[in-house]
């Protein structure tokens, strides 16, 4: 078996504030294999963005990060800034949610891409501008020769996100982290941009962590899925494990396929009754217990571990994996 490209172990992030500490990520562990697409899903506030920012060392100073993230043999957590800077943008590139605000408004698109290129490559300015134009062409921006000289506000939302993707691809990273790359876009262009991301990933051969709310995207793009709740992985497995052999009540809820909730399977994550937990004061035992239809006495005790389902890589954090599987089998899907 090949070694993972990124191996996150027991990653925790706590924000200190005057209202007390908030633990946004609690002992996350997961691997990303070279070339693999890992989708990360979960309700708002479950710690998806914080996890990826922690890996990149981009969290504000108020965050305390512990645990380990080994990338290609190098430890990222606690690494000094100089070392991180060599990895950022070169080996790991990020695509952010809102292309309207993620690009600097006072510099041209071209100069922002060129900056990313020349920072990590010994390349003349002229060659870098040519490469930037080429990249824009690759992500499907028409008339790239002219558009490379335009400012972000002269691009549409979809084009800006394409430009962000071009910038992320510029140094052929080994890992792309895309944090809800289509959420802020018009529905009609989401699919196109996703296509571009898929292409970028294929062209560079990069592995990808794809944070999304869109189960259609997960199904279409991902090899594996991490389902997050309250700062921890609740279920992890390949596409079929998650969609057809669901082993966690929370995932079932997201899929909208719990019979008693009478929801139908839709593309979007289904809202689950009840509120996401207060991260400052998690309930005793399993954090999902107050909203869980399967909860029993045992769930009040201690939080369940992420346990193997059928011995494979499919894992679930639940005491009632069997009952969930039964309910799954009995549901309409």
């Amino acid at each position, binding site marked *: 078996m090949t070694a993972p490209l990124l191996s996150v172990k027991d990653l925790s992030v706590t924000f200190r504030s005057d209202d007390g500490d908030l633990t946004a990520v609690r002992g996350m562990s997961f691997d990303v294999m070279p070339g693999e697409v890992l989708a990360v899903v979960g309700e708002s506030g479950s710690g998806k963005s914080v996890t990826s920012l922690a890996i*990149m060392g981009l969290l504000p100073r108020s965050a305390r990060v512990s645990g380990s993230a080994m990338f290609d043999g190098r430890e990222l957590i606690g690494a000094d800034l100089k070392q991180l800077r060599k990895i950022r*943008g070169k080996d790991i590139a990020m695509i952010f949610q809102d292309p309207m605000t993620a690009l*600097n408004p006072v510099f041209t698109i071209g100069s922002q891409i060129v900056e990313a290129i020349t920072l990590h490559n010994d390349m003349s300015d002229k060659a870098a501008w040519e490469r930037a134009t080429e990249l824009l062409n690759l992500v499907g921006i028409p008339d790239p020769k002219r558009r490379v000289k335009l400012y972000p506000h002269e691009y549409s939302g979809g084009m800006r996100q394409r430009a962000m993707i071009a910038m992320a691809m510029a140094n052929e990273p080994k890992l792309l982290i895309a944090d809800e790359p289509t959420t802020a876009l018009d529905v009609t262009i989401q699919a196109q941009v996703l296509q571009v991301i898929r292409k970028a990933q294929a062209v560079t051969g990069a592995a990808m962590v794809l944070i999304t709310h869109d189960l259609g995207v997960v199904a279409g793009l991902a090899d594996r899925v991490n389902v997050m709740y309250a700062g921890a992985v609740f279920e992890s497995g390949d596409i079929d494990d998650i969609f057809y052999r669901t082993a966690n009540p929370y995932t079932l809820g997201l899929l909208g396929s719990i019979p008693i909730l009478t929801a139908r399977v839709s593309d979007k994550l289904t809202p689950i009754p009840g509120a996401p937990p207060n991260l400052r004061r998690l309930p005793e035992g399993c954090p999902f217990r107050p909203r869980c239809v399967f909860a029993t006495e045992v769930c009040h005790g201690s939080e369940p571990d992420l346990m193997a389902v059928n011995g494979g890589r499919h894992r679930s954090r639940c005491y009632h994996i069997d009952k969930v599987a039964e309910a799954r089998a009995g549901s309409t899907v």
Partner: protein
Amino acid sequence: MLAYTVRRLFSSVVLLFIGTAVVFGLTSISSNPELLLATCPPTRCGAEFRSEMIQMYQLDKTIPERYVSWLGDAVQGDLGTAVRDGRRPVTEVLGERLPKTLLLAIPAFVLTALIAVALGVYSAVRQYSVGDNALTAFSFIGISMPTFFFGLLLQVFWGVWWQEWTGTRPFYVTGYHNADFMDLVSSLTLPVATLMLVSVAGESRFGRASMLEVINSEYIRTARAKGLPERKVIFHHALRNALIPLVTIWALDFALLLSGSVITETVFAWPGIGSYFLRSITNYDLDPVMAIMVFTAAITIMFNLIADVMYGVLDPRVRYD
């Protein structure tokens, strides 16, 4: 951009005319020579003096009539007579005093801008550090204390205390001296420092706020995610954006300095426009008062225009058409 500038120039001129009318009206009402004459005992203001005043200030005409005649003269470059200055034309007196005001204004403006940006960046990058908190305290003192307080403080410190301690006086504490360059610098130091203390306090606050907003924006995170060194993130990506809103502040501050710092020039007996303004008011010398107010209005309007044009240059999102 050019069309916009030309259009704005036209509206600026209109604005200036409206401004002069308002200022003229207010000046004529508030320091009405008619009333002064009425309360002046005949022993001091004889019949001859009275008729001269009436003729000079056209007191037999209505205020609108006087304004039209003032405007007619003004557009031809005649801003009236400085009665208390040897009855010379106001423009001549202002021509002598303006360069001295510039001598204060330009160094004060440039140094203030540089220091305020540096402090603003420092405070924003090290938000809530000891240094930032100290600067916050300093700013609040600077903003809330009146200018003359700092002026007098500097005078007492360098003119009295320092001399007592060391027996030397490195700076002139009043007046304009220009025997040689060092002499000039020495007489400029304290008034420029006084002007700066107050404006650094205000501008660095703006700088800090503007920088903080930018530093927390997503494109700064993008810049870091690229692998850029922090120095480039701050001084290239962040500062360039943070300076844009400062342009307006700078334009207004500079306009204020150019039209003469009334308090500072008076405290330091500096022969500029500001001290002349105060002197003319206390002397009821109406033409210079009117002229300086119009000058101030013109400068303010002009720098507002410059600020707006600068916005278009600095911020590609701003389009004038």
